[in-house]
């Protein structure tokens, strides 16, 4: 019992320290903004250490609930319960550690930035919201944190808001997330309407499968599509690369986009087989499309973004085929190696920018204002940036799924899952299996292409004096690279069964699949070696694929323009008909009011005035008999006399 209260306390502390960091960033004044670079990483370190401690102390496969009543509406009680189960215990250290490393990295990367307080505040707030999603037991709470995560993502993508592209990308990300979240909200309503309950601890143990579950789970999946950048709504993620690179690492590679996959795994028991089929198909299509796009990009961050989408697609597929544990494993390994890749890319960008600035300052009139993110402009960096090179290589190998790296094990477990799901008899499920193999092949291709052109290809910028980024940026790289090697996941580099996987849950294993997938990867490596390393001409790309299958153009054409047209029509209707009707009504009213006013002035007021006038006239008439005028008296007396005589005499 006493142990439980310490757990409560520690969980609360781990959740609230990032929030404290956020609040501190708000409180500290602009003059002392350098303080932020100390407080934020320290607080995040606290959170990370607590999370790791919890991860190791709480026994696996236990879940426990911290009861918190949130509010009451009528007879219903909403609980803000916090649940510590194997998923949340796994996700907590993942988020906190990567967030801490990104904080550390940002201290170097963002040094001298004007909005550094806002930046660290939002990073802290993001970590808090993400931990909130992971820990909440209530779907409504998850939705609230989900929205907060979307908001912080918006703020951080648009961090350099003076750049129009960044502002536009932030808007786009927010809009696309909203579309998905609308679906999520509808899903919540369906769940509420049928169960009057949002507590996952109850929802996940329904006695039987109801028909509404398909609709509800598909609607929740809509939210996942938005947040995890799945097929119809994935184009926001490449654009989100306008944000600072550490943000891309933390949010748009490691954690936020993984929130969707986490949610899928969290509410997995709610999904019906039909819904799962949709999930699997969406996932595999996304993975295929995005990996093809990644193969045709030139911008490092764009390549990484598309590769993220493709990996997320694989995770979603894994959930769809029912091996959500494999998805979670892939989520964890992907978080580490993709964060490492992004931070490595950031390090390259940082170093080259620095070199460009130095060249500019030294006054050498060389054309060094090239785009440092374009891999065609890079090359031969392996000698100049050794730490970045090695960490990037390790993480890249992990991404490509080369044996002995963590990515291999997780990808292997996904393929195994699909393998068992597709069964022995031929069906459409085999298509998905083949696609998964194809995706892992293409992954090798684009990873190799990227690494080759950044680090190996002929050096094109030899006259720049490029130096490695500061140590505070190298340490996170090294830590993340170490976490991308196989021993993080399991002691056996070919089979996912180790201390770590107890947190993930049971996984299937098949030696045949392991052999097959390593064969595919090695084959792909050989192929790419001959494609890229021997000659450089394969670097050209297909524009159609570079622009993500023209989806953006399609959205622009179909939705953008139709919305604009609709808006124009609505505007005309509004101005002509609604306003016209209003104006007509107003005009009628005013005219009627004029009539009433006329009636009031001339008839009602007139009659009153007439009465007054008559009484006035009568009054002055009667008064005039006694006006003090002596001659008038005589006159009236005479008149009276004449009348008298008239009657008397005649």
């Amino acid at each position, binding site marked *: 019992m006493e142990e439980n209260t310490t757990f409560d306390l520690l969980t609360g502390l781990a959740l609230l320290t990032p929030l404290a960091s956020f609040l501190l960033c708000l409180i500290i004044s602009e003059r002392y903004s350098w303080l932020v670079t100390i407080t934020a990483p320290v607080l995040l370190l606290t959170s990370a250490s607590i999370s790791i401690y919890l991860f190791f102390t709480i026994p696996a496969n236990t879940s426990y609930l911290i009861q918190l009543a949130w509010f009451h509406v009528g007879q219903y009680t909403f609980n803000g319960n916090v649940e510590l189960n194997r998923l949340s215990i796994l996700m907590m250290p993942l988020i906190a550690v990567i967030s801490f490393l990104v904080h550390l990295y940002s201290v170097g990367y963002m040094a001298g930035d004007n909005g550094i307080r806002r930046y660290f505040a939002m990073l802290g707030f993001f970590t808090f919201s993400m931990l909130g999603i992971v820990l909440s037991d209530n779907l409504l709470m998850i939705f609230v944190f989900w929205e907060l995560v979307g908001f912080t993502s918006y703020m951080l993508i648009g961090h350099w808001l003076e750049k129009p592209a960044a502002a536009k990308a932030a808007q786009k990300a927010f809009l696309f997330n909203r579309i998905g979240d609308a679906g999520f909200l509808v899903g919540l309503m369906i769940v509420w309407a049928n169960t009057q309950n949002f507590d996952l601890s109850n929802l996940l143990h329904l006695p039987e499968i109801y028909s509404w579950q398909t609709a509800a789970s598909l609607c929740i999946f809509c939210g996942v599509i938005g947040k995890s950048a799945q097929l119809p709504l994935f184009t926001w993620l490449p654009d989100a690369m306008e944000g600072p690179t550490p943000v891309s690492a933390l949010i748009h590679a490691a954690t936020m986009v993984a929130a969707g996959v986490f949610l899928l795994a969290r509410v997995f028991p709610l999904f019906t087989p039909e819904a799962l089929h949709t999930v699997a198909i969406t996932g595999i299509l996304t993975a295929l499309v995005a990996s093809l796009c990644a193969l045709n990009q030139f911008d490092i961050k764009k390549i990484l973004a598309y590769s993220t989408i493709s990996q997320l697609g694989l995770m979603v597929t894994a959930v769809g085929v029912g091996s959500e544990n494999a998805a979670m494993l892939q989520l964890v390994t992907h978080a580490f190696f993709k964060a490492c890749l992004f931070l490595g890319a950031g390090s390259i960008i940082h170093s080259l920018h620095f070199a460009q600035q130095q060249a500019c300052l030294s006054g050498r009139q060389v054309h060094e204002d090239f785009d440092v993110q374009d891999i065609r402009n890079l090359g031969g960096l392996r000698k100049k940036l050794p730490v970045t090179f090695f960490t990037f290589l390790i993480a890249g190998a992990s991404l490509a799924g080369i044996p002995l790296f963590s990515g291999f094990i997780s990808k292997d477990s996904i393929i195994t899952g699909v393998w068992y799901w597709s069964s022995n008899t031929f069906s459409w499920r085999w298509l998905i299996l083949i696609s998964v193999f194809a995706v892992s092949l293409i992954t090798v291709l684009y990873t190799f292409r990227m690494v080759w052109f950044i680090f190996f290809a002929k050096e094109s910028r030899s006259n720049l004096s490029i130096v490695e980024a500061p140590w505070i940026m190298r340490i996170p790289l090294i830590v993340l690279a170490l976490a991308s090697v196989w021993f993080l996941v399991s002691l056996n580099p070919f089979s996912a069964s180790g201390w770590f996987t107890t947190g993930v849950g049971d996984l299937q294993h098949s030696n045949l699949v392991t052999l097959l997938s390593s064969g595919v990867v090695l084959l792909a490596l050989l192929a790419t070696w001959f494609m890229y390393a021997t000659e450089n001409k394969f670097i050209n790309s297909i524009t159609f694929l570079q622009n993500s299958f023209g989806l953006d153009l399609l959205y622009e054409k179909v939705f953008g323009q139709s919305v604009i047209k609709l808006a124009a029509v609505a505007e005309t209707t509004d101005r002509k008909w609604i306003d016209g009707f209003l104006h007509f009504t107003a005009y009628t009213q005013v005219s009627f009011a004029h009539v009433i006013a006329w009636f009031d002035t001339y008839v009602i007021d007139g009659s009153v005035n007439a009465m007054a006038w008559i009484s006035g006239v009568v009054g002055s008439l009667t008064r005039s008999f006694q*006006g003090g005028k002596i*001659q008038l008296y005589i006159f009236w007396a005479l008149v009276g006399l004449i009348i008298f005589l008239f009657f008397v005499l005649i």
Partner: protein
Amino acid sequence: MFPAEHILYLSALLFSVGLMIIIIKQNAIMVLLGIELLLNAANLNLVTFNQLQAQSFTGQMFTLFVIVVAVSEAAVGLAIVLRVYKHYQTSVLSEINELKE
């Protein structure tokens, strides 16, 4: 000798003119003048009706008496008008209305 009706017509005219002057004229002196006309119309009547009894002179005597009274009355009236004029700086009747209130 004029026939009696002609003189009575004249007297009636004179009386009417006097009455008109009294009512219409603004100035107090003119009003006094109108009063003289009334008296003279009455005098004419007295003289005319005296013709019915040619042997008596009552009418003429009465007329003479009226003339004397009229003179004294005019003297008193003019004196009052003079005082009024001194007091009010006007002899217009409609402006002398202090008694009204």
